[in-house]
């Protein structure tokens, strides 16, 4: 039963955020465990009592510490339609990357309401396309 549950959960995980998105996260940084994390936290907590998710994505680039607030890795609250636990981090970032799973409608930077957000970058990942990463800039 436990094994089946795991398989189902994995499927659910794939449905909720695609392998392409995971691949993209792998490109921009490393998965880190927040518990006991001693590096730059970017407002996330490394204590078990304050839950800001178990994992996050972090990278060091050219001497800079970069912490990514990944919406799907931040805590999900089934009772909160707005998902404020996620929004309070992403909404306070100046730069946000929008990963669009499939090129559908063009993402509008006005979609996310924030007083801080200044730049939105949208990434479209086409796995069957020779041009792997298409970047749209505003």
């Amino acid at each position, binding site marked *: *039963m436990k094994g089946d549950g795991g398989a189902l959960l994995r499927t659910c995980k794939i449905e909720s955020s695609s392998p392409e998105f995971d691949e993209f996260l792998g490109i921009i940084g490393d998965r880190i465990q927040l518990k006991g994390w001693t590096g730059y936290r970017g407002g996330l907590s490394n204590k078990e009592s304050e839950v800001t998710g178990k994992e996050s994505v972090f990278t060091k680039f050219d001497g800079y510490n970069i912490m990514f607030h990944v919406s799907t890795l931040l805590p999900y609250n*089934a009772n909160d339609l707005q998902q404020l636990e996620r929004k309070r981090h992403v909404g306070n970032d100046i730069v946000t990357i929008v990963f669009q799973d499939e090129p559908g409608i063009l993402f509008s930077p006005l979609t996310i309401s924030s007083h801080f957000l200044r730049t939105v970058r949208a990434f479209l990942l086409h796995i069957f396309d020779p041009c792997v990463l298409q970047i749209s800039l505003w």
Partner: protein
Amino acid sequence: MQILEIAAPQLAGLENTLRHVSSTSPVGPDLAAELIKMENEQCNVDFKFGVVYCKKGQSNQDEIFGNGACEPEHEGGRGGFTENL
């Protein structure tokens, strides 16, 4: 300190930090550590960026922030789900 003010007025903000450094550790191994700490405080090397996952056809922020509800790391979202298996 006055020389610094005349020579480099743009560093006026550093004055207090420098005083702090010189008063807490005039000489000794701590000085190097204090200087590194001071330098880190003056230069911002830490950045945070948001990453949101947007599925096809999603144009509402509540939908987008609700993505990834079933990730194993989110115990809250999975509690009722596993019991039904």
